[in-house]
């Protein structure tokens, strides 16, 4: 417990960063780039309906400078290291993530939701991820520099996200302005049959 306090992991932003980097996604990858950890934690906060990290709507949608600063601190403290554009936990970081998991601050339901956020989002491409987040949280489109480009290929992104199992047919239909059933009947399948 002392080490958790020593490294400031009792702060939600810092603790969540360590925890999310300790989780393997559906492709068994733990590493995350800046965009993916920002969006996964944004999604997680919505999933648990409790905001502990401050986000503002910036060029790439919901972004937290608090998360960015804390990630830099974790790197300086030797709990995280960077490989290319991705962040991974060091051995010490993994040990502290394990302690955090056992602490009373994180209930099993909270951890499960954090795991789900990473499971849902971490293997999407940057563009798929941005499209998903802008559409799921329309308030984050406000200051976007990318949304207008992405929306031009709306149909393609919706189909990809649906085929990857990241949205259901109701959401796909809503985003395309059609009934879910109509979406399923018009989905291109020529590559599959």
């Amino acid at each position: 417990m002392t080490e958790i306090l020593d490294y400031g992991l009792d702060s939600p932003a810092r603790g969540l960063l360590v925890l999310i980097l300790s989780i393997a996604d559906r492709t068994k990858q733990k590493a995350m780039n800046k965009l993916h950890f920002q969006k996964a934690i944004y999604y997680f906060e919505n999933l648990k309906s409790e905001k502990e990290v401050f986000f503002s709507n910036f060029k790439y949608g919901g972004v937290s400078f608090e998360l960015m600063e804390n990630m830099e601190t974790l790197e300086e403290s030797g709990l995280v290291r960077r490989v290319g554009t991705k962040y991974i936990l060091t051995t010490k970081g993994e040990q502290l993530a394990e302690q955090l998991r056992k602490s009373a601050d994180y209930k099993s339901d909270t951890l499960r939701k954090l795991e789900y956020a990473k499971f849902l989002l971490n293997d999407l491409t940057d563009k798929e991820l941005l499209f998903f987040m802008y559409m799921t949280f329309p308030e984050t489109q406000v200051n976007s520099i990318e949304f207008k480009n992405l929306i031009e290929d709306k149909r393609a992104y919706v189909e990809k996200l649906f085929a990857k199992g990241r949205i259901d047919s109701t959401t796909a239909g809503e985003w395309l302005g059609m009934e879910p059933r109509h979406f399923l009947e018009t989905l291109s399948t020529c590559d599959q049959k």
Partner: protein
Amino acid sequence: MKYVFDTSSVIVLLEICALKEQLRAFSAKHSLYVSSKVREEFMDGRKTDREALNIFSVVQPILNKDLLAYFNHKTSSGEFWTISYGCSGGDCICVLDDGFGRNLCQFLNIKYTGSIGIINEMKNEGFLSRKDLLEIRGKIRNSNFYLSKTLLDRLDEICFQ
């Protein structure tokens, strides 16, 4: 067994595969349910055989608040209603074809299968002949309705094993 069906699986089995009579026979051995939301979505179809839906008992599930977060806090998805019923106790298996719902069930350890799984069950219990299976395969592959490649490959295995 008890099964609760999502809209896409009802469409695949009743409309695309035209398995009304076989499903009726299957329902004598198993309890088949749809939620009121799925019933509503199915009835929206232009070619819908409304009488066929009588094979299923319509249920009004208690909507699961914890599950709602995974649907972005919206109750509009038929899958949300299906999975709500599936995880409400009573040992009911969700029948879903959409990847999202199947992934979510897998993640939350909720029992699930899909329309292809039901076809396999019907085959194993003698409700479908080899000729029926080949016809079903042709109907699904010639339809415009989306099923993932994984599910289509599974159908091939069932037909040819």
